[in-house]
């Protein structure tokens, strides 16, 4: 029976032993330093401890007990967006994500997790009804707090919530979730003869429910069967990023139970982070799953993909480049790290945009440079996140678009914040929204 909640490393030497299990991965870093060229955090701070080479060196020293200050190493380890840019560009192919994800879980288990994090990862996120209720209530009670700042971007300021939100410019909660409104979905395959599990992910379910709606509309339009159980929970990435492997495995277990209730050909999501997490991180903890879970995770990983990849590469929808209409909107595309660097998806979303006559795609410089959001990174290192985001914003505005498209809801919130802070009149949309809009009203009727 695998141990889901392994005991906390009781001593420093137990921690260093755990880290030594990563030694074969750590030693493959040849210290060339080429990660400096692509690391967004290093690009802002120029600090060696902020770049992968520095972090790997710190972990090696911790594993070999030449530094004993685990707390201080942990702080530096967490100054990382987990964007994977370094791994994608590493000449010696160091498995950076495996190292960082595992190291965070070892160190967090040794140092312990804060009460609030435990509450969120192991209580709130594990209870879909409670989480939905919380977001519905937020939708209801947010009104007096929110002040609209930028209608084009769709952003708000919440001066009274500054202690929680800082001076972020945020989207508003719709007040209802996709799964709450739609309930459980289980429609058989249509003319495509394919059926997918649609995993909305927390943000496209609760904050940008329009992304899940757009995805559903597209799948319906193409005759793809959809299975979305109403008790799916968070994919687990926030817990994992904080090193809470116990919380992560709790969430994964619930999702696996929920997904095991129906068969499907693929698992698709409009959230790049969920896709990357299910595909790459769920299998990382294979030794800690139950046997039936193991089987499911192994089967799920190759079937999991981003919605645009499914449309272009599996469904083979005809996305022949269109002749751009006169007066078409200029759109630029931001490569989400989890899409391009983790999943290798960069051509598919562009192909979709180019097929739409209402838009003219203009590439921005450094389109695949991280936006700086990084999920919980944005919560805990907002100043740094914003600094990195400003570079992305400068690249976006340099091509004077009226719209920026991307494939990741977390990137969307960051782009909205950055553009709104600069009072730019540039809308932020997901590629599925652009495509769903083009399908027109007929498809909407079929979807509902």
């Amino acid at each position, binding site marked *: 029976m695998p141990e889901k909640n392994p005991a906390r490393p009781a001593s420093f030497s137990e921690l260093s032993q755990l880290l030594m299990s990563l030694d074969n991965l750590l*030693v493959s870093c*040849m*210290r060339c330093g080429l990660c400096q060229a692509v690391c967004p955090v290093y690009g802002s701070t120029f*600090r*060696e401890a902020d770049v992968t080479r520095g972090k790997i060196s710190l972990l090696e020293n911790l594993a070999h007990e030449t530094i004993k200050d685990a707390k*201080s190493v942990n702080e530096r380890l967490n100054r990382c967006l987990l964007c994977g840019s370094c791994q994608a560009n590493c000449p010696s192919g160091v498995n950076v994500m495996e190292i960082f994800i595992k190291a965070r879980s070892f160190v967090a288990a040794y140092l312990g997790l804060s009460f609030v994090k435990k509450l969120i990862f192991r209580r709130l996120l594990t209870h879909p009804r409670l989480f939905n209720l919380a977001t519905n209530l937020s939708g209801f009670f947010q009104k007096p707090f929110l002040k609209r700042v930028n209608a084009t971007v769709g952003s708000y300021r919440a001066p009274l919530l500054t202690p929680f939100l800082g001076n972020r410019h945020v989207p508003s909660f719709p007040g209802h979730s996709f799964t709450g409104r739609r309930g459980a979905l289980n429609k058989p395959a249509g003319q495509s003869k394919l059926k997918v599990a649609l995993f909305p992910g927390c943000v496209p379910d609760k904050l940008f429910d329009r992304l899940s709606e757009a995805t559903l509309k597209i799948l319906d339009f193409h005759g793809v069967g959809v299975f979305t159980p109403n008790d799916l929970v968070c994919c687990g990435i926030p817990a994992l990023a904080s090193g809470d492997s116990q919380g992560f495995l709790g969430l994964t277990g619930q999702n696996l139970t929920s997904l095991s209730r129906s068969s499907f050909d693929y698992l698709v999501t409009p959230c790049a982070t969920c896709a990357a997490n299910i595909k790459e991180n769920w299998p990382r903890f294979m030794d800690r799953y139950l046997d039936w879970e193991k089987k499911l995770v192994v089967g799920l990983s190759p079937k999991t993909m981003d919605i645009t990849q499914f449309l272009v590469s599996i469904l083979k929808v005809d996305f022949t480049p269109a002749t751009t209409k006169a007066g078409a909107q200029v759109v630029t595309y931001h490569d989400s790290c989890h899409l391009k660097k983790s999943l290798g998806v960069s051509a598919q979303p562009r192909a979709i945009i180019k097929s739409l006559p209402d838009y003219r795609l203009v590439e921005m410089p450094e389109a695949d440079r991280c936006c700086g959001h990084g999920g919980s990174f944005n919560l805990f290192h907002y100043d740094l996140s914003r600094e990195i985001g400003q570079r992305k914003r400068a690249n976006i505005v340099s091509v004077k678009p009226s719209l920026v498209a991307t494939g990741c809801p977390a990137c969307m919130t960051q782009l909205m914040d950055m553009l709104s802070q600069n009072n730019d009149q540039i809308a932020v949309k997901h590629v599925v929204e652009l495509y769903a809009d083009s399908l027109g009203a007929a498809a909407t009727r079929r979807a509902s």
Partner: protein
Amino acid sequence: MSISPSLVQEFIKITSAGQVLTEEADRLSYSYDAAVLTPKIPALVVAPATEEQLGQVIKLAYDNDRPITVRGSGTNLSGAVIPEPGDGVVILTNRLNQILEINQEDLYAVVQPGVITSQFAEAVVAKGLFYPPDPGSQTVSTLGGNVALNAGGLRGLKYGVTKDYLMGLEFFDYHGNLVKTGSRTVKCVTGYNIGAMMISSEGTLGVFSKIILKLVPPPKASQAMMAVYDDINKASETVATIIANHILPCTLEFLDQKCLKHVEAHTKAGLPVEAAAILLIEVDGSHQAGVDEDAAKVKEICSRVGAKDIRVARDAEEKFKIWEARRNALPALARAKPTTVLEDATVPRSKVPAMVAEVNRIAEKYKLDIGTFGHAGDGNLHPTILCDRRDAEEFKRVEEAVDEIFDVALKLQGTLSGEHGIGQAKAKWMVKETNQATVDFSKNLRRALDPKYLFNASKKIV
């Protein structure tokens, strides 16, 4: 580490609290560079943001008898920026990263030392000009570091190396006083040619604050090809014949069979793994017709000398593909084993086959996996030893093999290092390549410019 809080405060007073690092975890991240050597933790790391702060920081450290190591991106392969023992101070140049001027009329640029090489090269291209030195680490290396190590790259044969582009310098001496040398003019004989002494000085004589670099007009046409050989001597003869025919390819790269096998295993690009060696040749120039003529001549030479296959790139895509083998040489070798010891012994180009044969003999003798690639046009080879530094017994053999590679290079009238630097790694070999008088002369020079021997003391000359 003992560094008094009051001294830390003085460093902070010059810079700012955020730019002085004293926590163990931060200092530890500056204990190494890209060389496979033992790390040393400095006592303090400071990142001045202005040239003025840089001068003050140097004076403060020197007056307080702190060993000083100046660091750019820490990518050199000779241990040139591993800190000194005895509570050393590391001075970072990353924040001094302004391109101050790119002059299109007079073909020069003025930069601060922390500017990243490839970012500079791109800025120069945007102004319609060309800065040729392209060391392997160019996406992260700093121009200050390039000057301090006299960085080379793939274009050495035709375009030269960093030293050929250095027109002038401003640097701080140990008093923190600013010294100026060279100028923005093509000709300049004012004072000693101090720049020539500072280039590849590896942080032992002073600290750069401003660099004047020469720019050239870019080539307008180029042609790339791959020539495959079943005999390494024929590859070498090709190189000699090309140059004897007064053609200077902009790049003339070489990969041996072991290297090809590793690259093919990694890329599956369909490389000729049975070949003894391949040459990757690119000619460039200002006229397409002239380039075509040179390319045809090179092709003819390759086949006359005995290349068994020649692939000429017909378009940009094919050119990209031809260079894939070279681009992937180091990544492929680096993935094969945990530790990659990248050597840099350089011989006169006619001795390349002898050198490769010796490297292969040494690999056999010490039972090591060594792949060799490099710049055939300038005899600068990179025998790359694949090993695992955790295996003490094996690593001892690696060190012995490296020593023997140097021995052989010197016997072939070559040099210890073409472009990676002497640093800590090769300092002990200096006498062997030169003589005691040379080392003594260098030490005297050094003592005159650094009486307390605090500038990177264990590097270059010991």
